[in-house]
């Protein structure tokens, strides 16, 4: 481990160090720059001053020579002027004139003192206040020299010979004072001139103060370059001119101070903006890098703060720092993913541990030698063995011994080949009880492929197995009767076919449908129906061999499968026995009940070679049996198949007909004999099939009744007829009533009365205008229910007509009990009158009977005038038949009725007036 080595060292951030170093380097830079600038500046000044001083020295050397020459020339010039005045020749008399001459020279004379002496050296004349000399103070042979007065004033003396008249040639000396004024006028700006004589300053261009300062220095100073040049010839070293050339500064002190401050500041700023700014920026980046590392150390993953710090460290740069930032980002990602993996692994381990511990499946883990290492709680709960009971032992202690050695050999073989095995095993619990379990065994290998463990998981499937068997049973059997259902039947039928095909035997399929079972169900209730079905099932099972199968397809349909049927005779014998057996009374809740069955038979291989075909053909044969009068059996033939198909198609079309509005009502008038007028009409349904054309009622009404579609069709008929008759009545055309034929299905329906009441209410038709026609057989199917329904209809005010009277029992007791208003003589009796004596007698008796019980009589099927006349004579109330009028659509009848009212009625017996129809 590498520890934090710097833990005891004082903390000093890079930013601080960078700042200090930058400030130090800036300061050093500024100092060095300032110092070097100062030295360069001083050197330049000194060099400039040196050159200037040299120039000045050369200049003043020339200037002094020129001055000497001027003074000398002036002396000679003045000498000439004096000689011209000849004032010196008359010296005594012209002294005042000479003085005046000198005075008027004014400032044009340059000398301060003039002395004229004779050849003998005696003073002749002098002028000027400066001196008062008796003789010229320089040698007789000298033309120029220096004279230092007692006052300290120095004079440059020029001596020229001058004519004194009779005294001969004397000497005239001109004294030019070397004073401040002279040097002031000589000095150029900035230059200080100091004249010295014998080393003593005698004049300064800056005046008295200059003289005082000159005493203290005559050499170079820091700000002055001093040059000295000899003045005059000969004794040149005595008099010298010092030239103080101040080092000419280029800048004032303020400018220097400003420059000294400004240049380092500007340079410093430049340095700052070039190096410092960059350095501080990168320092901040490094600091951000450090912060990122701290963030990474704290969270071990990429966080928003880490991203922000790394972004600051990158700072949109591509350099080493950004490389490190990228590396940290990658490290964070890596750390995060490793951490995630570790946590996922931990979570996975915890999960597996929890799964292991809380699994509802028992788990046992064995080592490579198949010794149990561990088991979970579910194992203990399922087997009763605690971990201490089994750990270190072979799992065979769980074995019940029910599985043979082959079983285990196969199991180990598959396990070794595939690495896993699954299957049912019956083992024994610690308490000795057996249980069936579903066992999964997996082999676990290490990375090198070596076997390390066996993992076994299992659950108790005893209950599951039982449920499964129960479900299988339910899936194959009818719950009501316990008989095999269609599924199992088909399975067995297929098996039987397969077996029969190999054994060249026949298979008989007997398709049974109880006759009128629907009536039982509807009238006696489903409970009775169910009891009936159970009883039938039991009776069927009692009738067949164990090798045969009795199945229930649903409803009242049963199949008897004769697996090894010998031939048609055997099958017919069985079929006959079944029909006979079922015809025996059945005890339903203490009541004997008679039920018949219709049976269709198909035989393999003649009627089909598969189960579906055999069933379909048996079904068709069963319909044929029903159509043949029920309670019988029929063998399948090809025609049954076609008619069955037609019937199926017709049933499908019938279901759509009402929806597609394909039904229509035709109305056949009923003539009131007494009034010779149409007093009523019978509504007759017609089906205008889109493909088959007009389908007669006897083609579809039975089918409608079988399929119970008659309920909906009948409701449509009643409602349509009611609306039509009401419409006619509103137009003043209407017949007195409209008669509608009922079906037994309607009559037995519990909802029928409610339907009628709704129609009456919705249409508003008078109940007296409605008449329902029914037959004796309809009532006899369920007399009690039918009578109740009829009575209720009567209570509503609806007329009832007993149709087809005379064809059935025509029981007088029924006639008495039925609440009918009218009886309709069946057409079979009318056809024979008046020729057939029997028919005529029967009709005569029916009419007499009706009259005796005050019932109206309608004779239908009147086709001849003889029939009409005969019946009129017998007192028949109403006549109906083609002679009167054929059934016709509503529109046609409306035209007929309208025409009758206008006297153009083409009825055989013309109506008196439409109003008369209703008068009765």
């Amino acid at each position: 481990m590498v520890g934090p080595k710097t833990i005891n060292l004082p903390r000093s951030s890079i930013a601080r160090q960078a700042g200090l170093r930058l400030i130090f380097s800036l300061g050093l830079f500024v100092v060095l720059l300032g110092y070097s600038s100062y030295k360069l500046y001083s050197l330049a000044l000194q060099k400039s001053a040196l050159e200037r001083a040299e120039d000045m020295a050369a200049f003043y050397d020339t200037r002094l020579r020129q001055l000497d020459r001027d003074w000398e020339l002036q002396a000679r010039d003045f000498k000439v002027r004096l000689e011209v005045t000849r004032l010196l020749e008359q010296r005594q008399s012209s002294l005042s004139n000479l003085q005046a001459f000198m005075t008027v020279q004014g400032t044009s004379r340059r000398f301060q003192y003039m002395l004229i002496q004779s050849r003998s050296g005696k003073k002749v004349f002098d002028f000027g206040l400066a001196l008062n000399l008796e003789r010229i103070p320089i040698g007789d042979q000298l033309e120029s020299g220096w004279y230092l007065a007692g006052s300290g004033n120095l004079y440059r003396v020029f001596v020229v010979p001058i004519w004194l008249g009779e005294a001969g040639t004397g000497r005239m000396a001109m004294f030019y004072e070397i004073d401040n004024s002279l040097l002031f006028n000589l000095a150029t700006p900035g230059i200080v001139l100091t004249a010295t004589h014998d080393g003593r300053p005698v004049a300064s261009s800056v005046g008295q103060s200059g003289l005082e300062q000159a005493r203290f220095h005559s050499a170079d100073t820091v700000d002055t370059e001093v040059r000295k040049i000899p003045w005059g010839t000969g004794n040149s070293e005595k008099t010298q001119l010092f030239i103080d050339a101040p080092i000419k500064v280029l800048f004032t002190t303020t400018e220097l101070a400003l420059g000294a401050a400004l240049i380092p500041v500007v340079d410093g700023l430049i340095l700052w903006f070039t190096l410092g700014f960059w350095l501080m920026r990168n320092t901040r980046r490094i600091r951000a890098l450090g912060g990122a590392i701290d963030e990474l150390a704290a969270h071990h993953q990429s966080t928003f703060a880490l991203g922000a710090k790394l972004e600051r460290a990158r700072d949109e740069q591509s350099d080493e720092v950004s490389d490190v930032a990228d590396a940290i980002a990658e490290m964070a990602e890596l750390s995060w993913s490793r951490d995630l993996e570790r946590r996922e692994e931990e979570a996975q381990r915890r999960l597996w541990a929890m799964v292991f511990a809380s699994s509802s499946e028992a788990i046992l883990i064995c080592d490579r030698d198949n010794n149990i290492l561990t088991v979970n709680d579910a194992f203990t709960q399922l087997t009763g063995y605690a971990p201490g009971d089994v750990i270190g032992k072979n799992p065979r202690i769980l074995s019940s011994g029910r599985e043979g050695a082959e079983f285990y050999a196969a199991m180990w073989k598959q396990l070794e080949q595939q690495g896993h095995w699954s299957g049912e095993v019956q083992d024994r619990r610690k308490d000795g009880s057996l249980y069936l379990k579903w066992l999964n065994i997996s082999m676990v290998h290490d990375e090198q492929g070596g076997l390390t463990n066996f993992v076994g998981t299992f659950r108790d499937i005893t209950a599951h197995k039982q449920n499964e068997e129960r479900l299988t049973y339910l899936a194959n059997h009818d719950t009501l009767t316990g008989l095999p259902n269609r599924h199992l039947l088909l399975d067995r039928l297929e098996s039987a076919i397969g077996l029969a095909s190999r054994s060249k035997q026949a298979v008989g399929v007997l398709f049974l449908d109880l006759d009128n079972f629907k009536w039982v169900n509807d009238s006696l209730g489903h409970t009775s129906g169910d009891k009936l079905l159970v009883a039938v099932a039991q009776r069927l099972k009692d009738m067949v061999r164990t090798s045969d199968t009795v199945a229930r397809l649903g409803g009242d349909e049963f199949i008897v499968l004769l697996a090894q049927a010998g031939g048609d005779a055997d099958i017919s014998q069985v079929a006959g026995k079944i029909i006979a057996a079922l015809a025996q009374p059945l005890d339903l809740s203490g009541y004997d009940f008679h039920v018949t069955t219709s049976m269709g038979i198909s035989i393999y291989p003649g009627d089909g070679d598969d189960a579906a075909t055999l069933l379909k053909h048996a079904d068709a044969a069963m319909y044929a049996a029903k159509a043949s009068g029920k309670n019988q059996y029929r063998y399948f033939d090809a025609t049954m198949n076609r008619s069955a198909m037609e019937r199926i198609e017709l049933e499908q079309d019938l279901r759509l007909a009402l929806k597609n509005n394909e039904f229509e009502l035709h109305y056949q008038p009923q003539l009131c004999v007494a009034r010779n007028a149409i007093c009523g009409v019978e509504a007759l349904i017609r089906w205008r099939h889109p493909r088959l054309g007009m389908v007669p009622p006897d083609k579809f009404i039975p089918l409608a009744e079988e399929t119970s579609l008659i309920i909906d069709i009948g409701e449509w008929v009643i409602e349509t007829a009611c609306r039509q008759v009401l419409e006619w009545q509103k137009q003043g055309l209407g017949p007195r009533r409209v008669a509608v034929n009922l079906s037994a299905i309607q009559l037995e329906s519990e909802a029928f009365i409610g339907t009628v009441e709704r129609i009456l209410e919705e249409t508003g038709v008078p109940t007296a205008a409605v008449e329902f026609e029914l037959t004796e057989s309809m009532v006899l199917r369920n007399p009690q229910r039918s009578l109740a329904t009829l009575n209720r209809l009567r209570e509503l005010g609806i007329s009832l007509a007993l149709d087809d009277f005379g064809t059935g029992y025509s029981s007088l007791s029924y006639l008495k009990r039925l609440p009918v208003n009218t009886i309709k003589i069946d057409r079979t009796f009318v056809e024979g009158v008046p020729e057939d004596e029997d028919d005529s007698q029967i009709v005569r008796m029916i009419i007499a009977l009706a009259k005796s019980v005050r019932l109206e009589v309608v004779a239908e099927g009147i086709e001849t005038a003889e029939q009409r006349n005969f019946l009129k004579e017998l007192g028949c109330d109403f006549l109906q038949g083609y002679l009167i009028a054929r059934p016709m659509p509503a529109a046609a009848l409306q035209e007929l009725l309208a025409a009758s009212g206008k006297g153009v009625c083409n009825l055989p017996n013309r109506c008196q007036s439409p109003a008369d129809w209703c008068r009765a």
Partner: protein
Amino acid sequence: MVISSPGPRNLSYLPVDLIPAIDADREEGVSLQILHTGGGAVALNNLVTRNADFAVAGFPAVMSLDANGGDVIGIAPVDDAPLFVLMVRSGLKRQVKRIADLRGKVVGVNTSTKNSKTTSQQLAELLLKSDGVDLEMVRIVPAGQSWVEQSSLMISGTADAVMGDEPFASRLAAEGKVFFLANLADPATTRKIAGANFLHATLTTRGDMVRNEPRKVEKMVRMMVKSLKWIATHTPEEVVDRLKVTDSEERASLLLALKKYSHAFSHDGKFSSSQLRETETFFHKTSEGNPKAQSLPIESIIDARWSGRKQ
């Protein structure tokens, strides 16, 4: 310390000669060296050319120098009244009765310089012009400002008239060599002159002296004031004695002038505002045609911090 002044023993500048005579310089701890010149303009030239740190000159001459670029400042008055006498050679007494008669004559004035016209020249030209004499009709020559110079011009006949100083004029007149044609002490003369009561002899220094060596200036002013006060408190004889005038004629003339012009000197060394106004008027009058001189305010070249002011 060097002071340049006309003289020696020119009455108007006598207080300068008296300073070392009464040891006023030594009392101030300095040794005063006097550079005598032939005129105030020359003294001022010594001042500006650093031969002297101070000068005494007529203040119109100071103003003339300043107008021509000289950096000079008046720091203390010396005279209280201008003492100028326009004297004419006795030999011309019949010819010259009035100033206008000087036309065609030679007139001596105190020696001027290129940059400064002496007060005597300014006064002479003013008088000549006021009497209608074209300056082109006279020859003006330097006459110096000492007895030797001025007397030599009169005696030799080098000049016909001289705008001279006292006591030289009175001495020449007493010797019969000259007669006075105009005298500023004579009201008849002053009536003709605007600002005739101008400030004449004035202690002057350079601007750099005022700025750089105010203590030296202060000492100079104190010495001058002491001299003036000494004169005011002593008799002419004491003055003359202290000046150690040995020549009897000179002594007599000096005594005469001191007595005659008892109010010649400022007695307190303070600038008089009214006199300064007179001086300004005089200078502007004499400098007509010179715009720079005309616009020069006298107060701009006066520094009375050491001497003081009065009305």
